[in-house]
C-alpha cells in the first residue's frame, strides 16, 4: 500500500507518518509541502492512498486533485473548514479533523482497506468547488501548472469530456463539465449563452444579428460566439436590456 502525504505543515505530516507506522503494509513514498509537489508525486509514485490537506500554498487540495488524471483514494485532513467538510462528505473515503486521535485515524484507514477489497473506492469527480474556485481555475499545460484568475478567461467552450478555457494566450483544456463552471463561477460575470459556451461578460463588446432570429456575441479580441435563443434572452436579462 503506497501512501503519499500532502500537507504544508511538517508536524502535521509527522503525525500521519507516526500513526501510519502501526500499519505494517503502509509505505510512505513521499511527503509534499504543497499541491505542485503533490501533482509530481502522483505521477512519480502512483500511490494507492493519499492524505491531503485542503489549505495549502499556491493551489488547494481540491485543485490538486483536479489536475490528476486517475486520482487515488483520498483521506482529507483539515483543521476547520465547514465548506470543505460539506464538499467531501460525499466524495472522500473519509476526512480527519485536526487534531485527530489514533483511533479516529485507524478507523479512516480501515474504512479504506475494506472499500479497497470490495470495490474501487469512490473517486472525486465533481467536487462542489472550494471557495477559491470562484476566483481561479487551475489548469495544466504540458508539465506546467497554471493558476488562472477568472478575469483572464474570455470564455469556455464544451469539448467532448473536456472544457476548452480560452484566454489571450490561447486555450487550456480541463476535464470538467460546462455546468460545473456555470454553477461555480459568479453568475453575473459568466453567462451560459449557448449549450457549448460560457461567456465572460467583461469580454463582450457587442451583439450582432445573424440570419433568421439568431444572434452572435462579438468579443474584444474579435472572437464570435453563437448565442442560442435561451442564451440570448439570458444575456439580455443579465445586461438589463
Amino acid at each position, binding site marked *: 500500500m503506497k501512501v503519499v502525504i500532502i500537507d*504544508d*505543515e*511538517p*508536524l*502535521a505530516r*509527522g*503525525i500521519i507518518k*507516526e500513526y501510519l507506522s502501526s500499519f505494517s503494509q503502509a509505505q510512505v513514498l513521499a511527503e509534499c*509541502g*504543497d499541491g*505542485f509537489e503533490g501533482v509530481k508525486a502522483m505521477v512519480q509514485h502512483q500511490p494507492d492512498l493519499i492524505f491531503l490537506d485542503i*489549505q*495549502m*500554498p*499556491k493551489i488547494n487540495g481540491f485543485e490538486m486533485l483536479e489536475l490528476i488524471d486517475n486520482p487515488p483514494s483520498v483521506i482529507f485532513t483539515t*483543521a*476547520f*473548514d465547514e465548506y470543505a467538510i460539506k464538499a467531501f462528505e460525499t466524495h472522500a473515503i473519509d476526512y480527519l*479533523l*485536526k*487534531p*485527530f486521535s489514533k483511533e479516529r485515524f485507524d478507523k479512516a484507514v480501515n474504512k479504506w482497506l475494506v472499500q479497497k477489497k470490495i470495490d474501487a473506492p469512490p473517486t472525486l469527480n465533481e467536487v462542489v468547488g472550494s471557495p477559491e474556485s470562484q*476566483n*481561479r481555475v487551475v489548469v495544466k499545460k504540458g508539465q506546467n501548472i497554471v*493558476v488562472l*484568475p*477568472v*478575469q*483572464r478567461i474570455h470564455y469556455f467552450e464544451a469539448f467532448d469530456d473536456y472544457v476548452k478555457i480560452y484566454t489571450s494566450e490561447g486555450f487550456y483544456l480541463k476535464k470538467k463539465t460546462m455546468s460545473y463552471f456555470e454553477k461555480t463561477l459568479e453568475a453575473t460575470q459568466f453567462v451560459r449563452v449557448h449549450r457549448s459556451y460560457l461567456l465572460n461578460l467583461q469580454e463582450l463588446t457587442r451583439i450582432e444579428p445573424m440570419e433568421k432570429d439568431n444572434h452572435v456575441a462579438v468579443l474584444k479580441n474579435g472572437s464570435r460566439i453563437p448565442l442560442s435563443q435561451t442564451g440570448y434572452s439570458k444575456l439580455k436579462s443579465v445586461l438589463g436590456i
Partner: protein
Amino acid sequence: MGATKQLFFIGWWLLWSALQFSVMVYYGISVRQSWMDATVTSSMVVLFGYVMITMVKYFKPSAKNALAVLVSAVALTVLSGGLLYGTLKVLPSSVGYLQWLDRTLPIRFIFIWLMIVLAGINGWLFFFIKEHQQNELREKENENVMRQAELIGLRQQFQPHFIFNSLNSISALAGTNPNLARKMIEQLSDFLRGTVKKEINQLVPLKEEFNHLQLYLDIEKVRFEHRLIAEVRADEAALEMKLPSLLLQPVLENAIKFGLYDTVGEVVIRVEARAIQNNLILEIKNPYDPSSRSTMPGTGFGLNSIQRRLALLFYRNDLLSTQQNENTFTTSIKIPQR
C-alpha cells in the same frame, strides 16, 4: 415635580398676581382687596393649570382630539371659576367690591379659560419634546449597543484554523518532542489568555500588542518551521503609542496566510512601526505572487474586519490602506493618538 417645574409655577403665580394686583389698584380698588383677589385668582389658575398639564401628560392628545382638550379646558374653567367666585364671595369684602366682582365675572372666566388652554398647550409641547428627546436617546443607546456588539463580533473572528492547526502540531510534538509540545501549549495558552482578557474598546501600548504578537508568531514558526521569518521593528516613540487591542494579529494572520500560500519557499513578513507626528504608522509587508491572484490579499475577510473596526472606533474610513508593488503586498494602518 422637578425644581424647575416648581419654579415655573411659582413664577407664573407671582407674575399674574402682580399684574392683576397692579390693574386692580390702578382702577381704585383697595390694596387689601386687590391683594386678596389677585392671590386667590392666581392660585386658582396655577392649580387648575397644573391639573390641565397633568391631564395632557397622561392622555397625550394628538391633533385629532384637540377638541377634547378644549372641552376639558372649558370644564376646568367652569370648575375653577365657580370655586374662585365662591371663595371671593365668602372672604370679607366691601359691597362695592362684590358688585365689581359680579361685573367682571365673564372676563374672569375668559381669562381663566385662556390660561388653562395655554397651560395645556405648554404641557403638551413640553411632553412632546421630552418624548422626542427620550426616543432620540433610546436610539442612540441602541446604536451604541449595536456598535459594541459588532466590535465584539469583529474581534472574535480570528481564524479557528489557527487554533486547530496549532493543537494538531502539539499533538504531533507530544509523541516526538514532549518538551516542545509543552512549550507550545504554554504559548498557545498565553496567546488565548491575551485574546480573552482584553476589553473591546481598550487601547493598549504598542509594546504590549507586540508581546501578544510575538506569542502568535512563535506558534506559527513552530507550525511552519524554517519557512516563516518575521521581522518586527519599531522606533522608541512608537512603542509607547496606543492602538486598539488585538488589532495587529489578524493583519499578521492575513499576511502570513497570503505570504505562505502564495510562495513555496521561505517567507519573510515585515512589521514596521513608526511615530509620525501624532500618529502611529504600522506597515506590514508580505510577499505575494501577482500572477496567480485574481483577488488581492486585501479583499479577504481579515482586512475588511480591521477596516470596519477602525471605522467604528475612530469614525474614519481612511486608516487602513493596502498597496502592492512587484512581489510585495503592504498593509498600512494609521492610528491617531488622542
